[in-house]
C-alpha cells in the first residue's frame, strides 16, 4: 500500500512539475507563436488554418507546407495571414517551401527586433520530455507535453515519433525541449497519442538555403524537390537487392530489400467454397508526399496475386481471372487540374527471367502513364502483368509508382518484368 501511495505521489508531483514547466515555456514563447490562416480572396473567409512560429528577428515564420498548400498551388485565389497572441492580423508572403518534408517559410513585416524561437543544435534523446505548441481546431494556443520516441521506424523521409496529442490545427507549430529550443515541427497524427514531427534539421537546412539564396519561383522549387526526391527513392529501389521469393510455392516474385518498403500477405485458403484459390503479397511505401488536398504523389505499390482453379474449366477460370484484373486502380489521388488522363498500351510479353531462367512466364502486359501538368517531367505509372500460359494457374504482377521520371519508371518496369517467373 505504501508503495502505491509513493508511486501516486511521485506521479502527481511529476505532473505538477511538468505543468509548471509547460506554463513557463508557454508564457515565454507565446509572442513568437502564430496562427496561420489561408484566406479565400473571393469570400474573404478563412479556408484553412494551422500554426506557425517565428524563427528569425527579420520575421521569418516556419509552418507546414500543407497548411499553405492551396496558396502554393493557386496563389491568385488565396492570401496568407497570421494572427498573433495579441489578436493582430496581417498578410505574409510565402518565401520558400520544402514539399518533401512538409515545411514552408513565410515572411511577415517587422518594425523592430522581435523575440523568436531558437532552433536546437542537437537531437533529443529517446524518452526526453518535449512540448508541442499550436492552436488545435481554432480553440486557442495550447501547449501539450509529450515524449520523444526516436525516429519513425523504416521511413524514407524521416519523421520523429512523438508520444503526445497532436491535433489538426496544430500543424506547423513547434515542438521544443526544456531549454525552449525547437527540435521538431508538428506534422501528423495517427491518433491515440501517436504524433509525428518533422525533425528540426530539415528546417535548419531549409532556412539556411533560404538565407543563402531565396527561391525565385515556388512552383519551380517544388518541381526540383519532387524530381530529386524521386531520383533518390528510385535509386534506392533500383540499386538495392531484389530478393526472389516464392508465392504459394508456384511462382517467384521479387522483394526489394529496403526498410521503407513493407510487405503484407493474405490468402483465401480458409474459404472452402471459393472457386479460385488466391494468395496475395502486397508491398508498399507507407508514406507519400502531400501536394494539395486532392493531389498526392511519391507512393509506391507492388502487388502479386497467385490464383489456382479449383474444379473449373479453363474458360471459366480465365473469365473470372479477367474480371480480377479489369480494374487496376491508381496508387495516388490526383485530379483534372493536376494530371492528364492515363495513356495505356498492352502486348504479349515473355521476359527473360532473372530469377529462374528455365521457367519463363508469358504475360499479357499493360502499361499506363499520366503526366503532371504543373511539374513537367514527372509521371504516374501503372503496370499490370497477367500470366496467360497456364490452364489452371495464374500470376498477376502489378505495381504503381507516383511522381517519377520516364527514365526511372522504365528502368523499374524492365527490372520488375524480368524478376517475375514461375517456379
Amino acid at each position, binding site marked *: 500500500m505504501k508503495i502505491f501511495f509513493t508511486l501516486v505521489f511521485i506521479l502527481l508531483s511529476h505532473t505538477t512539475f511538468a505543468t509548471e514547466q509547460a506554463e513557463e515555456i508557454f508564457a515565454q514563447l507565446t509572442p513568437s507563436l502564430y496562427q496561420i490562416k489561408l484566406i479565400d480572396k473571393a469570400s474573404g473567409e478563412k479556408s484553412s488554418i494551422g500554426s506557425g512560429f517565428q524563427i528569425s528577428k527579420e520575421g521569418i515564420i516556419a509552418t507546414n507546407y500543407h497548411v499553405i498548400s492551396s496558396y502554393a498551388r493557386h496563389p491568385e485565389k488565396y492570401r496568407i495571414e497570421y494572427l498573433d497572441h495579441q489578436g493582430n492580423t496581417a498578410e505574409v508572403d510565402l518565401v520558400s517551401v520544402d514539399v518533401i518534408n512538409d515545411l514552408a517559410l513565410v515572411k511577415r513585416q517587422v518594425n523592430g527586433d522581435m523575440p523568436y524561437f531558437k532552433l536546437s543544435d542537437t537531437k533529443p534523446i529517446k524518452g526526453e520530455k518535449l512540448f508541442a505548441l499550436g492552436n488545435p481546431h481554432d480553440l486557442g494556443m495550447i501547449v501539450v507535453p509529450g515524449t520523444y520516441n526516436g525516429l519513425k521506424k523504416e521511413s524514407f523521409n524521416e519523421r520523429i515519433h512523438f508520444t503526445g496529442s497532436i491535433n489538426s490545427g496544430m500543424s506547423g507549430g513547434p515542438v521544443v525541449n526544456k531549454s525552449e529550443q525547437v527540435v521538431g515541427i508538428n506534422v501528423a497524427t495517427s491518433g491515440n497519442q501517436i504524433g509525428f514531427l518533422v525533425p528540426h534539421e530539415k528546417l535548419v537546412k531549409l532556412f539556411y538555403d533560404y538565407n543563402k539564396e531565396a527561391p525565385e519561383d515556388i512552383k519551380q522549387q517544388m518541381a526540383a524537390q519532387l524530381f530529386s526526391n524521386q531520383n533518390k527513392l528510385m535509386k534506392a529501389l533500383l540499386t538495392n537487392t531484389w530478393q526472389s521469393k516464392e508465392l504459394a510455392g508456384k511462382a517467384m516474385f521479387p522483394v526489394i530489400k529496403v526498410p521503407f518498403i513493407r510487405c503484407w500477405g493474405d490468402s483465401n485458403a480458409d474459404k472452402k*467454397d471459393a472457386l479460385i484459390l488466391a494468395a496475395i503479397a502486397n508491398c508498399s511505401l507507407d508514406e507519400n508526399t502531400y501536394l494539395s488536398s486532392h493531389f498526392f504523389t511519391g507512393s509506391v505499390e507492388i502487388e502479386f496475386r497467385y490464383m489456382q482453379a479449383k474444379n473449373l474449366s479453363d474458360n471459366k477460370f480465365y473469365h473470372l481471372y479477367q474480371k480480377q484484373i479489369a480494374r*487496376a486502380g491508381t496508387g495516388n489521388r490526383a485530379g483534372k487540374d493536376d494530371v492528364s488522363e492515363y495513356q495505356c498500351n498492352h502486348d504479349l510479353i515473355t521476359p527473360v527471367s532473372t530469377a529462374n531462367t528455365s521457367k519463363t512466364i508469358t504475360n499479357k502486359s499493360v*502499361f499506363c502513364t499520366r*503526366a503532371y501538368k504543373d511539374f513537367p517531367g514527372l509521371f504516374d505509372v501503372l503496370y499490370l502483368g497477367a500470366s496467360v500460359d497456364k490452364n489452371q494457374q495464374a500470376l498477376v504482377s502489378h505495381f504503381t509508382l507516383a511522381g517519377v521520371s520516364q527514365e526511372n519508371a522504365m528502368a523499374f518496369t524492365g527490372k520488375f518484368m524480368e524478376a517475375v517467373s514461375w517456379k
Partner: protein
Amino acid sequence: MEVAMKVNTEAMKDAQVGNTETEPAIPVSSDDLPIEQGEIIIEEITRNHKLLHRHRLKQNNITIGRNYQNDIILTDPHICPQHLSLNYSQDVWCINDNNSVNGTSLENKECKKQDGNQQVLNDGDVIVLGKSQLRILFKSHSVVDTIAFSPFESLIDLIRHPVAVLTSIALFILITANIAYLNQPTEINISQLFVSAFSMSLLFALWPAAVALVSHLTKHDPRILAQLGISFTFFILMWLSDLLEEIIAFNSASNSVLGLIIALVPISLAFSLFWLNSYIGFHVSSKRRIVVALSITILLFGGSYLLQYSKKPEFNPHPQYSATIMAPSYLIAPSNSVDSFIEQSNALFEQANKAAQQD
C-alpha cells in the same frame, strides 16, 4: 348494210359481257360509227395508297356513291348517296360530280390536286371523295418487271424450316447459358442457368415477333418462322463475331489494325439482319429496304455510342486499358521481349505530355 349489221351484233355481244342486265342493244343507225365500249379499273385505296378492293368495269357509265343503286358502293359517311359518275365518250373518261356536299377532287401522278368536276381522267389519277380515295387505271397501264427469286429465297426456305428454327433457338439457349456460367463467380446449378437462358431467348424472340406483327398489320404475310429463324441465326453469328473479336484482342498488341476491322463485323451483321427482316416481312423497293436497314443500324449503334459518350466523365482518373485474357488454347500470336515493350511504352510518355498540355 351487211357490214353495219355485223358490227352491231359484235357491239351487242360486248355489251352482254359487260352488263348482263342491260336491255338488248338497240340497233344503231347505219350512218353512225359503232359506240366504243369503255373499260376501266377502279381501285379503292387507303390514304397510304394501300389497295382495299379492285373493280374492273366494262360500261360507259359508272355511278359511285353511298346508296345501293350505284355501281361502286362506298360506305364512307362523308360521301353523298349519288356522289359522282364517270362517263366514257370519245375515247376519254370524264368525271361528273352530282353536286355532292363535300365535293370531289382529283390528284394526278404529279400529286397536283384540283377540283374533280368535269375533268378528264388519266391513267393513275386518284379521285378523292369524302375521306375515301379511288385510283383509276386503264387496261393499258404498264406494270413493273417481274422480280426474280433472289438467292436469299432458298436460304430463307432452309432457315424457316421448323427443325432449323428449333435448332437455332436451342443453340442460342446453350450459348446464353454458357456465357452466364462463365460469368458466375460462385457455384451455380444447371436448372437455374437454363431458366435464365430460356427467358433470355424469349426476350430476344421479341424482335422477330415484333417484325412479324408489324408486317401482319401492314397487310403483309407475317412469316413468323422465317423471322425467328433468321433472327436467331444472326444472334448466334453475332456471338461468334464477339468471340472472334475477343480472340483478336487477346492476341494483338494495342493499336492493331485488325482490332479496328473486326469492330465493323457486328455492325455489318446487324445491318444484314435488319435487311433480311425487311426482305422477309415487307414488299418494298430495294432502295427503301437498304435505307430502312441502314437507319435501324445507325440508330442502334449510334444510339449506344451516344449513350456511352454522354456517360463518359469529363476527366477519368482511372486507366482505361484492354485486359482481354483467354485460356492458353486461344493463344496464337508469338510474344515479344521486354525491350520491345519498354520501347513501345516510351511513346506513351510523349502522348501523356501532350495530353497534359492540351487543357
